[in-house]
């Protein structure tokens, strides 16, 4: 099953099971079913709770927060994650703050879905991955869709947190299949440790390096791992968390032995360089595993640049599997 279908089914299941859930967004009604068809079929089955809105991201997020405040649950679709900037005040200054700024905890079950990422030629304002702008906001959690985590579980978890959550969804990942139980391909297996998908060489020993990436980069990371194994004889491990923030891999007991035995930790992400999620994760690793890490954590991100439209220019700016491969080689041997 492709990731988009998994996410669509998760929304169908959620609306079917919980009559307090609303879905709001632009152009999400059938037969159109949303710009990326993630909401396909929802409005026909749940016409009163799947609501198409005007082009008003601030009002969509605010109205969703109002629903949550009144005891409902809300899932918002921001057509392109870039436009979450238009809802920044409602997300950061209202929904997230409201959880704690009134003295006693105010439940705010609210998910803001953000289709993100490039590689599709949509240009500078329709290709970004904006996690870094929402990092470290008290009362706000960041999640990302992965090919490992069933999205129904992810949606249930976010709503149960009782605080607003952003769900980043890589647009290319939509078209890729979910990984079946246990196997990534003929070389690699995967398992869950806490909420982190751990990909390892089947029957392998200690990894030469370990990658940590959000779900949107999972396939590029696996592709890099194959090349590094087959062409450079380097065995790698890969960690893909469901929740990106807060995220503290060195605080997960089941991951510490792996991180301690690895030759290099490399954190890769699609956000542009500077003030990134990866820097935050690396700072945590350096602090918590200072006596154990063999080398400084290597960082990979998109260039500190706008994301160009033309395919050859876009490719130079965004993270490719080859970017990850080079970073690992340089980290280990550079």
């Amino acid at each position, binding site marked *: 099953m492709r990731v988009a279908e998994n996410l669509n089914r998760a929304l169908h299941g959620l609306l079917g099971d919980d009559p307090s859930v609303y879905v709001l967004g632009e152009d999400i009604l059938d037969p159109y079913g949303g710009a990326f068809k993630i909401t396909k079929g929802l409005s026909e089955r749940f016409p009163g709770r799947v609501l198409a809105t005007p082009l008003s991201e601030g009002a969509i997020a605010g109205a969703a927060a*109002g629903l949550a*405040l009144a005891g409902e649950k*809300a899932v918002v679709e921001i057509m392109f994650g870039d436009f979450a900037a238009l809802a920044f005040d409602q997300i950061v200054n209202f929904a997230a703050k409201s959880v704690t700024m009134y*003295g006693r905890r105010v439940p705010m079950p609210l998910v803001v879905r953000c289709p993100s990422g490039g590689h599709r030629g949509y240009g500078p304002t329709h290709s970004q991955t904006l996690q870094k702008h929402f990092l470290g906001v008290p009362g706000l959690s960041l999640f990302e869709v992965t090919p490992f985590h069933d999205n129904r579980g992810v949606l249930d978890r976010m709503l149960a947190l009782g605080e607003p959550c952003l769900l980043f969804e890589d647009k290319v990942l939509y078209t890729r299949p979910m990984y079946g139980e246990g196997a990534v391909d003929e070389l690699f297996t995967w398992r869950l440790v806490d909420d982190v998908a751990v990909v390892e060489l089947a029957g392998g020993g200690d990894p030469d390096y370990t990658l940590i990436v959000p779900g949107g980069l999972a396939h590029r990371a696996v592709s890099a791992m194959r090349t590094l194994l087959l062409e450079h004889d380097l065995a790698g491990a890969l960690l893909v968390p469901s929740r990106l923030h807060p995220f503290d891999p060195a605080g997960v007991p089941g991951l510490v032995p792996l991180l301690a035995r690895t030759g290099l930790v490399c954190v890769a992400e699609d956000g542009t360089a500077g003030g990134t999620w990866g820097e935050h994760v690396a700072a945590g690793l350096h602090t918590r595993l200072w006596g154990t890490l063999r080398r400084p954590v290597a960082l990979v991100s998109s260039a500190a640049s706008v994301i160009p439209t033309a395919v050859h220019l876009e490719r130079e700016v965004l993270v490719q599997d080859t970017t990850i491969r080079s970073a690992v080689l340089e980290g280990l041997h550079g």
Partner: protein
Amino acid sequence: MNGLADEDLALLLLIRCFERKLLALFEQGELNGTTHTCLGQEYVPVSLRPLLRDSDWIFSNHRGHGHYLARFDDPEGLLAEIMGRKGAVCDGVGGSQHLRRGRYLSTGVQGQSMPVAAGVALHLSRHEPGALACAYIGDGTWGEGAVYEALNLAALWRLPLLVVVEHNGIAQSTPTPAQMAGTVAGRAAAFGVRHHAIDALDVTAVRREVAPLIETVRTDPGPLVLEFRTHRLGPHSKGDDVRPPGVRPVDWYAAYRAAHPAQSARVEAAARDRVERVAAEVAARPPAVWGGA
């Protein structure tokens, strides 16, 4: 001016005395941070008080002490919140402009509450027909895009949203003609939203005028903009009063006192005593304790 029941006048003067006391406490260095008083505008929430129900939600703004006191008659909890003392409505975290109690909520960002109120109104329209969401905003708030996004949504979805505009003619330091092209009425009309302006300062007259309009929000849901042409009699916050000098202030209380001197003197003395007692008692309390996130 029409005579008022003691109860209504007591509430009006409680708000006035409370606000005066806050400014005095600031001058004495007893208060931390900032505050925005509603001197001159007290009659707006007091007029609306019997027209709003417990099941209605109220969204207030930075200038919201009168809104809170008209809803809860709780100067102790409000002053404790502003002073950061035990018994504070929100444990001292929210302060003057971030209050939540039951179905009452205020936020400190202009226009922010309008989409939230629309979302609450959506819930009410589905589950509690007849109840409404009331959002207090000012004339300056009409500069924010959130207002228009929310009005559009509320009109499209026919939501029971009552927008109470306290148009006091000055947005912090900026007079209305310097910050608003056109009018509030014109902007409401552009969205096909009902609008009514109120010039009266007389609580009885205001109630008579707006009661049937508010009832229509309950029976024929859709947004309604009630624009009170009102008058700010004090600074924007504290010590920043830039209202033009030489303009005679329009004060409902001066008019009322002239018409009803004996009742005014009696009720004002009682309100002032009450506020003094509350202030002394709250100031003696230990600091508020925040249970944390």
